[in-house]
């Protein structure tokens, strides 16, 4: 039974029995869903309320249903990986119970755990992440949406690890398999953009970003829309189409104000490098500072280290002292399972290389 079938049947039974409290259990989710990208705090509050209602009614599956969606908000929209990791571990332990053996969202909860680790220290837990993805692969049947999430995670992991050949292979699969979807196909386009950027294929980047923009608009995905626009601005600037790039840049500023969720990591990268290639270092620095403000204390350790690395490089390019920034960057890097790669880069920067 799919998740949505279960929900449909549950609500139907509750309505038929005149059990309004149970019949209303889905509603906080519906309300929250509309707010994920525009007001994630409120969305999280509504989901917490749904969870509490489920707890009062002793509906174990519904409690985990709401926790899964709370984790989605924590993982992708607020984002707060510290809280997400704690919650995902607790949920993973809970799902071992017999009560959840048939729970259609069990796999999603396991994916949340992997996503939490991927978001915090993907390199540090690489082996366990790969094994866990393989394990889930065996659990996922071809008729459920989980297969899209799983493929998206494989792509994301390969990109985070900078395994570009693997990323290219997995992204091609992801794009092909999501052709008839809205959300996942748009997600696949964000991956294609990241891949093109890492491959330094600017025309390809522009193409995917333009196609992605159309999808994000059609499926009302403001967070990804912003990312696609930023990639376009960057790619246009990179290919010498400055006027068009500036036009898009102006619309980015408008769109960003409307977004309640934290923009994606790729957005900050695209925007910052757009400024860098335009020689606007202080603007690039301002973008990275904004990104850093969204990361501090949130448990996205690898991303925070990389953001700090970008800040250090910008400081060096601007001829400014690295001082305290370097100390802070080293302190955060020390939280990674294996910080050696970053520490080596910090050493190089310290030596002025």
């Amino acid at each position, binding site marked *: 039974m799919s998740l949505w079938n279960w929900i449909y049947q549950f609500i139907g039974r509750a309505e038929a029995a005149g059990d309004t*409290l149970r019949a*209303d*259990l889905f*509603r*906080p989710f519906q*309300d929250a869903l509309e707010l994920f990208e525009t007001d994630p*705090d*409120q969305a999280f*509050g*509504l989901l*917490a*309320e*749904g*969870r*509490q*209602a489920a707890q*009062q009614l002793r509906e174990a599956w519904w409690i985990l249903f709401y926790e899964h969606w709370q984790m989605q908000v924590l993982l992708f929209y607020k984002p707060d990986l510290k809280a997400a*990791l*704690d919650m995902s*571990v*607790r949920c*993973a*332990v809970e799902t*071992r119970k017999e009560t959840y053996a048939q729970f259609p969202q069990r796999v999603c909860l*396991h994916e949340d*755990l*992997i996503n939490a*680790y991927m978001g915090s220290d993907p390199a540090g*837990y690489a082996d*366990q992440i790969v*094994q*866990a993805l*393989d*394990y889930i692969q065996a659990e996922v049947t071809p008729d459920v949406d989980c297969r899209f999430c799983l493929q998206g995670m494989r792509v994301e992991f390969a990109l985070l690890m900078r395994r570009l050949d693997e990323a290219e292979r997995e992204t091609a699969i992801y794009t092909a398999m999501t052709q008839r979807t809205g959300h996942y196909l748009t997600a696949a386009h964000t991956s294609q953009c990241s891949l093109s950027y890492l491959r330094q294929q600017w025309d390809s980047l522009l193409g995917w970003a333009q196609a992605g923009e159309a999808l994000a608009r059609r499926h009302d995905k403001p967070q990804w829309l912003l990312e696609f626009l930023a990639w376009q601005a960057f790619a246009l600037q990179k290919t010498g189409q400055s006027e068009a790039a500036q036009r898009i840049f102006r619309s980015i500023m408008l769109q960003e104000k409307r977004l309640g969720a934290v923009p994606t990591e790729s957005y900050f990268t695209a925007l910052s490098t757009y400024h860098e290639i335009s020689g606007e270092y202080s603007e690039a620095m301002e973008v990275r500072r904004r990104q850093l403000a969204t990361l501090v204390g949130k448990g996205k350790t690898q991303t925070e280290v990389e953001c700090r690395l970008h800040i250090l490089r910008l400081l060096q390019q601007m001829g400014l002292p690295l001082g305290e920034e370097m100390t802070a960057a080293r302190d955060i890097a020390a939280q990674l399972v294996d910080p050696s790669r970053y520490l080596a880069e910090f050493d190089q920067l310290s030596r002025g290389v």
Partner: protein
Amino acid sequence: MEESKRQQFQIHLPGLLKVLAENLYSSKKVAVRELLQNSHDSCVRRSAEGNERGYRPRVEVSVDPERRVLTISDNGSGLSTEEVTEYLSTIGRSYTRELGEKLSVLSPDEASQLIGQFGLGFLSAFLVASEVTLTTKSMKEGSQALRWRSTGDVHYDIAPGERDAIGTTVELKVKPSASFMLNSELLVETIQQYADFLPIPIYMAGDNMPINLMTPPWDAIDRQTAMLDYIGRVFKMSEPLAIIQLHDQTIDLGHDEITIPLQGFLFVPSHSVASVHEYGDLAVYIRRMFICEHQRDLLPPWARFVRGVIDCPYLQPTASREEIHQEDMFGSVQQALEQQLVAGLRNIAETEPTVWKRIVQGHSDVITGWAVRDNEFFAQVADIVTFRTSRGLLSLPEYLKLTNGTVYYVTRELGSLQEQLLGEGRGVPVVDASWFSVTAFLQKYADFKQDIQLVQLDGESKQLLRPVDADPYLALMDFYRKLGIRVRVVTFKPEEVPALVIYPKDAEFITESRNALDQGMLPGPLAGLVSDYIDKMKTSDEDDIRGTLYLNASCALIKQLAETPPAEATRDSVLTLIYQVARLFAGRTLTPTDVKAAFGETIKALEALASK
């Protein structure tokens, strides 16, 4: 390819009729509403176009269970032959809409009373009827009566009819699946649900009194009584804490202003039972015709302690008129409602503080949930919202008077008894913060007021214990240590309690996870990730996880035991009992096996005592 040819869609009318009639509407009852509305609009038309002095519109409904016929008759404008063909038999073409467009210039008052607009309503008759016969005589001079008949297929018949008076009679041959229509009581209930406020009287055949109220409660002479009656009748509630009557509202569009015509009222029920969307809903009328109930998108999301009824002609019904379109003016109506609700509540807070306090206290869970998200709202309620404490419901100012500026709270109901006991032992009540928003509210309150300390007691109960010199108790401690029990000697109140077992915050989860990992209950690859996290969880002292026994040096029994020589035979049994009782009282991290073992030890100790 040859040049393109322009072709026309082919419509399979019976199929379309079936789809529209059976799928457009969710309830068969709407057929009654649609027919009553046609009658109403027809009467409005006769009033507007007929210029007849003394015209008294009326609608009459009757049922003949034997013939299975439901009849709805009106003395409205009737239909001419052309109108029957143009409007009645043309799906999607609405005479009322076209009349409304005409009248909006010449007679805007009458135009605003017209309800129909889609030209689909008449189709709903086929939801309940296998055959529909309409006999009508138009108010147009020289008109002859007509009889129109259809069984819902592609054909209809028109023939001369028998009728002297101007107006229309619709006869429905009721299908077996809609037999409830032939039950007079159910029929009256349905008519009252949809058409209670229509200004034209609706009679059941043979009755002298109309079955509809005709006047909505907000227009009644004794509004207060009428509104209370409506709340009791429709919402099945009594004694609302407050009623806010709605009126037209001007809203600022930035570039311009617009006045939203609003009628109805909002009310605050006496209390909430649960938070999640229990209330926050409206019954919606458009031009006095009931559209839907439990509409939850018009009121602002924080207003879940409010219910009400509105009539707003700017709302746009869907084609089935069972829902409201959420576009165009919907947002403006939402805004108008929010403005009036905020103003109404502010007025209550300022002029009737006792009522405001009762509202906040009656809906504290809902209100704390919203207040943590909205600073302005938080400031309004911060000092009056009440919390469940170990001494009943208290507001924070009331609570803080008892605790000298510190808020002691527990976040989980399970296991909170021990913390409450400790709190009360020190003379401080404990706040139950198990509702998700309470902790956030307390935090916000502490930030807002400053100089307020928050102490979470679950996992941190040690804050209520006072260390003492352990020397006089070394023999007791030695007894427990030999059993592998971690032990401390402290003082705490109440003095009657000899000992407590206290666990750190995540002890249960860590224990549960380790058990699950040890027993291989988590899939291998996931187990590694879980294990890594559990290992990193704050465990200042590994032994803590198993709990620490705190002996109460203030307790007379503990003092007496400390002075008892270790060789005294009963001492060990009593110490065993003390530990097991404390462990069971804490109730945490115990598996069924642990509980069984604890009872086993308890019984052994009791038997040892009994044998002495």
